[in-house]
């Protein structure tokens, strides 16, 4: 009934051999804050049933937990699921087993970002990186800067589609051209750099 096209490129789950380097994936996920909560998952599917965006995901949240526990690193990290998650936390507050699904999704995003699994397919990662660069530069997010940077990272078509909205916002004085830079911008950049060098770009 809706004319809006879903980017619903659900893929068939592939059968992947249990390679030795994949065996510790679940431990890796559990070492990220929040990731350890998947241990108590009972596979009831409340999370998937609650998710507003499950139909746009390669795998549902429940399936992601199952695949992680089965150490299917590649399928998990190259899926779009965690990038579609909008962090609305409905699954988290509903989970009867206390699994923090949203934090689990964030953990997967950070691992995919670090290992490069998500880089090719995820517009969300490009957006998040543009967002972080804006913070690094100014200490605050400059919305116009983030949008331009995001579209420059290879989303020309979406830029054209987004233009009318951008212009309308601009006309109402809601898109300032100049960024606001905090006095401690350099100090903040040093904080970020220190955190990244310590962790090799991820947690």
């Amino acid at each position, binding site marked *: 009934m809706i004319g809006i096209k879903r980017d619903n490129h659900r893929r068939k789950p592939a059968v992947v051999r249990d390679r030795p380097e994949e065996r510790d994936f679940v431990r890796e996920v559990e070492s990220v804050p*929040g990731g350890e909560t998947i241990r108590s998952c009972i596979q009831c599917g409340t999370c998937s049933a609650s998710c507003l965006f499950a139909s746009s995901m390669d795998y549902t949240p429940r399936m992601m937990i199952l695949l992680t526990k089965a150490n299917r690193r590649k399928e998990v990290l190259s899926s779009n699921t965690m990038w579609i998650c909008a962090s609305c936390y409905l699954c988290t507050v509903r989970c009867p087993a206390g699994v923090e699904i949203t934090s689990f999704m964030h953990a997967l995003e950070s691992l995919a970002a670090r290992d490069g699994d998500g880089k090719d397919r995820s517009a969300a990662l490009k957006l998040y990186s543009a967002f972080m660069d804006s913070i690094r530069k100014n200490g605050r997010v400059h919305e116009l800067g983030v949008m331009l940077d995001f579209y420059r990272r290879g989303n020309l078509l979406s830029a054209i589609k987004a233009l009318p909205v951008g212009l309308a916002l601009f006309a109402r004085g809601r898109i300032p051209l100049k960024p606001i830079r905090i006095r401690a911008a350099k100090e903040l950049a040093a904080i970020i750099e220190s955190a990244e060098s310590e962790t090799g770009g991820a947690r």
Partner: protein
Amino acid sequence: MKTEKIRKYSYFPGCAMDGTAAAYKMSVHEVAKVLDVELIELEDWNCCGSTASASVNGVASHSIVARNLALASEKEWDLVTPCSSCYTVLKNVQANVQRYPDLKVRVEEVLRNGRAPYTFKPFLNIRHLLEVVMQDVGLEAIKAKVTRSLNGLKVAPYHGCQIVRPWFTFDDPEFPESLDRMVKALGGEAVEFPMRAACCGASLMLSAPDVGLDAVRRIIDCAEKAQAECIVTACPLCQTNLDAYQGRINRRLGTKYNIPIFFFTQLLGFALGIDPKALGIEKGIVPQETVLLKRWPLGDEALVRHLSVRS
């Protein structure tokens, strides 16, 4: 004249207030004055990183938020933010550094590598502005100050997601009613609105527009079916998504959505008798003036003259 007690808070506005949510900034400022709330902006605060930074790097994202928590720890007041995303991120980070001792050690180390040493309180009371208005100021005090009743204006109370989740704080995580109660106290009517705590799609609007647009469509459609004349929200990103993308949805689907989206501080300020211009009423992409004019055709001459300018 009775001088009322002024309540003081540390204030974390969030980045959107200086951009897409300019009207929120204006109206918060005005409303705070009338309600005797003093919002003392954290000096040289930095971006909370929102969901984006939490997703890309854990230690870095916790560290930049911890800097803000440390700045707020120097003051004795509660920390208040009008942005639902900042609210959740600040609360998450505060909880995580207590919950994961290793993370805390690393965050403190990283902060020391910045120029100044920062320390933060183990517990800082982090609150949403809506919570402060509802709990500290209270609807009774607000009612006493209403000079321009909302006259039965039909409002869809859209709370959004992160204001009530994942933290069980001042309202129900699935069926919040703060905005309903506020609208009623101001003389308006809160319509039945099942999408009250649904997600607006947040940054999916940029990263996966089809998914984001559909999320917005569902919310707008629900408000239309409930015959709401406008939607009220308490989050900068919700307001922008619902307000700015109705045109794009209409072009795509041939619908005729045209429903103005107010910040709760705009409706509140309007009812408190504040000049609509000072509340940023002209900053809506879907004009907010039209719906107000419909309800106040007579009486307030200056208001009508002012509101007519654009509509």
